[in-house]
């Protein structure tokens, strides 16, 4: 609809600038969104995407530049003004209230009421209509939002946008919390929205998704738009990566160096089970080998990892590291035996965000540096500095507060923790979640290096491409069972999805 005759843009942003203190977050961003299109905004973490969103949703005021809405220059003074114009935002950290029902959430802030008395029935009826417009008329408006998965909460957030008569919906990395199936569903919903003439600004750094859902792309790098309104279909991926990172990424995955066939099994898992979650999981990992666990969310892949680590107590089976059986359900036993876990939720399970970097790096090892229980912080800092250097962690300051680092650097801290510990077995759960493209390649290279140095690695990722690109062997899981074990080189992404979907259907 936007080829040739250029319809008037719904939103037209020119030369937007914004700085915080001494930091120039935006240095000139252009963005032009047409009615009914999916406009992808692409950029690495920290490129300025969040600042742009917050300006458009009225949370911040720009320092310079203009915003035109339906042809008229506007200032978006606050979030209410943004909603008044018809700009709704679906944040990554969904702003739904868990304790309220779907209908109550949809009309949160603009409740349907007569003289202060809520009209609950009316709210539920209209919520059902909105959900139907989103293709989910079967969701009960009275259901408590806290009981919904992330995908359901996103729907609630979208229904809320519709209830405000939004003309433009900004979605901030909506797929980050979804599995492959849910993402497909999300795309169906997005298409419903655009078919109704609503424009969607879709923020993501997953190129595959943008290919599938996007109409046009604006790329932001270092606070400036490096490309505005590129048609998705005509822009090759390497070009997008170049625009985003300023460098050409020839191959994201480093070449595999398969372990010596004679290498001994370091980790052996035998008939491991947690009742009601998974059962009969057996596999072994040799020194230097990377074994991937592929499967949908709910297949039990993260739970297998956590049970191997002792964070969950198995109901059957055993875990052996270098010939010694681990005492079941004991993280300490696993750590002492040389097993490390980089957990799925980096922030909530992995890091002390308000503590400095070095205390996170040495979280599993600080007693080792201590003499007679007295901490040796100088050595902790020294060791951290070495890790910072070898992992190219930024900023290179052991005392920097961990919460201020980007996702990729936070992930490196977790790897550094286990490198310092000297683990023989490293369990990686979603090591690149929330990590941008550039840092991703670095983390892949690190994982490879670790394997080459003889570490046995088990990798869980919801991105099948990542599992296939890194692993030597792949276990395919569905509904808590191992369907198959194959060499990664014999599999394509399509094969895995096929097996997984068949497996869960069976």
């Amino acid at each position, binding site marked *: 609809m936007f080829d040739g005759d250029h319809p008037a843009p719904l939103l037209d942003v020119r030369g937007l600038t914004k700085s*915080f*203190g*001494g*930091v*120039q*977050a*935006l240095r000139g961003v252009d963005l032009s969104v047409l009615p009914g299109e999916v406009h992808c905004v692409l950029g*690495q*973490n*920290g*490129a*300025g995407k*969040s*600042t742009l969103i*917050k300006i458009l949703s009225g*949370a*911040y005021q720009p320092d310079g530049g203009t915003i035109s809405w339906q042809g008229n220059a506007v200032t978006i003074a606050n979030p209410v003004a943004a909603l008044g114009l018809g700009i709704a935002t679906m944040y990554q950290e969904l702003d739904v209230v868990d304790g309220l029902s779907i209908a109550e959430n949809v009309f949160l802030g603009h409740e349907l009421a007569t003289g202060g008395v809520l009209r609950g029935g009316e709210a539920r009826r209209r919520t059902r209509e909105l959900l139907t417009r989103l293709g989910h008329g079967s969701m009960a408006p009275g259901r408590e939002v806290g009981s919904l998965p992330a995908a359901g909460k996103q729907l609630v957030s979208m229904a809320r946008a519709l209830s405000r008569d939004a003309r433009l919906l900004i979605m901030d990395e909506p797929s980050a919390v979804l599995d492959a199936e849910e993402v497909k569903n999300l795309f169906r919903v997005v298409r419903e929205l655009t078919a109704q003439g609503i424009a969607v600004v879709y923020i993501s750094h997953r190129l595959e998704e943008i290919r599938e859902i996007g109409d046009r792309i604006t790329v932001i790098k*270092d*606070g400036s738009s490096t490309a505005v309104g590129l048609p998705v279909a005509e822009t090759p991926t390497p070009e997008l990566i170049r625009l985003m990172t*300023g460098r050409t990424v020839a191959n994201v995955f480093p070449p595999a160096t398969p372990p010596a066939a004679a290498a001994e099994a370091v980790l052996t898992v035998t008939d491991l089970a947690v009742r009601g979650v998974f059962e009969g999981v057996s596999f072994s990992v040799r020194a230097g080998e990377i074994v991937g666990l592929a499967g949908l969310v709910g297949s039990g892949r993260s739970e297998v990892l956590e049970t191997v*680590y002792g*964070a969950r107590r198995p109901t059957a089976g055993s875990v052996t590291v270098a010939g010694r059986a681990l005492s079941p359900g004991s*993280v*300490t036993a*696993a*750590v*002492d035996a040389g097993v490390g*876990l980089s*957990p799925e939720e980096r922030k*909530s*399970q*992995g*890091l*002390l*965000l*308000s*503590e400095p970097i070095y*205390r996170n790096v040495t*979280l*599993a090892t*600080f*007693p080792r540096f*201590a003499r007679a*229980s*007295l*901490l040796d912080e100088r050595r902790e800092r020294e060791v951290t500095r070495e890790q910072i250097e070898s992992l190219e*962690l*930024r*900023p290179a300051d052991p005392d*920097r*507060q961990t*919460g*201020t*680092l*980007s996702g*990729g*650097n936070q992930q490196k801290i977790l790897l550094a*923790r286990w490198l310092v510990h000297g683990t023989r077995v490293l369990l990686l759960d979603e090591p690149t979640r929330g990590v941008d493209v*550039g*840092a991703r390649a670095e983390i892949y290279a690190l994982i490879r290096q670790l394997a080459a140095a003889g570490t046995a690695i088990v990798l869980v990722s919801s991105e099948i491409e990542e599992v296939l690109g890194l692993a030597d062997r792949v276990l395919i899981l569905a509904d808590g069972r191992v369907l198959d074990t194959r060499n990664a080189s014999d599999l394509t992404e399509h094969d895995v999805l096929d097996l997984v979907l068949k497996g869960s259907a069976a």
Partner: protein
Amino acid sequence: MSEQNTTVSSSVPPVIDRPKEKPDSPLRRFLGGSAGRNLGLVIALALLIGVGAATAGDRFLTVDNMLTIVRYASIIGVISIGMTFVITAGGIDLSVGSVMGLSSVVATLAAVQLAATQSSWILMVVVALAVGTAAGLVNGVVIAYGNVVAFMATLAMLVGARGLAELVSERRTLIVNVAEFLSATRSNILGVPLLIWIFVIVAAAGWFLLNRTTFGRRTVAIGGNREAARLAGIKVRRHVVALYVLSGFTAGIAAVMMLARTTSGTSTHGTLYELDAIAAVVVGGTLLVGGRGTIVGTVFGVLIFATLTNVFTQNNLSTSVQAVAKGAIIVLAVLLQQRFASRGSRRTD
């Protein structure tokens, strides 16, 4: 304020060609450091002393009165040190006041005092510490292994220990008649009462334990992110038990100090001390949600409240007025703390 922090951080990525963040100015570093966090407390204490000097100068600004203030602060102070650890780890101990009362009556039971007369006055100290420690152990086990919320577990102990103290003492005041105990604990060293020395030693030991040992690091780690600590191999439950044992132990020390000061044990000793201790800890800058704790702050918190009480008493103001002022100070101090904390801390998301 928080949303601003979020965006700034997400716009300061680790990309190499990005302009370097301006280094923090020395002033900023100072305000962000522990000295800065305590600056508000120093100012508050100085103000109070100023008010005291202005309103009751001749009586207030004497060495004797200063010692009285610190002596008054010392018992709550010792409890507050234990409380600082518990709160830093994200817990709470409401039972310290009751446990103190219980320890005081058990240590002054006729049988105990008789045994102490026959052997050594130290026995009374040991009994008081043992009772406190045991109560802490029960708290810790119920919380860590029974998965009972700390608030409820220690609330139950608050009620239960007070009741037990009444049963044990038959609601009578038990007079300390072991002369050696009184002469030892009511002595002065270098002109300073022993009670104050005990507070100083406990505070110094607490500072060292929190900031310089693996025990302290575990405490902060568990308070900062319990799950991350567990997944890094820290034995969280065991440590939580140790923390409540520590808190119970300090309540036992406080009981001994109370016996020395009042020369009697009664089930009402330590009533509402838990609230004073929590207020002192939080006013001092320890985060109630855990993850950051400061012993120095706690000591200031205790001294501020003790000075306040003293200033009011010197001016013959009623305890009701004191209570109102105390409430106001808690709110003001916490507001101030948040100011300093947010100015000092680097951008966080």
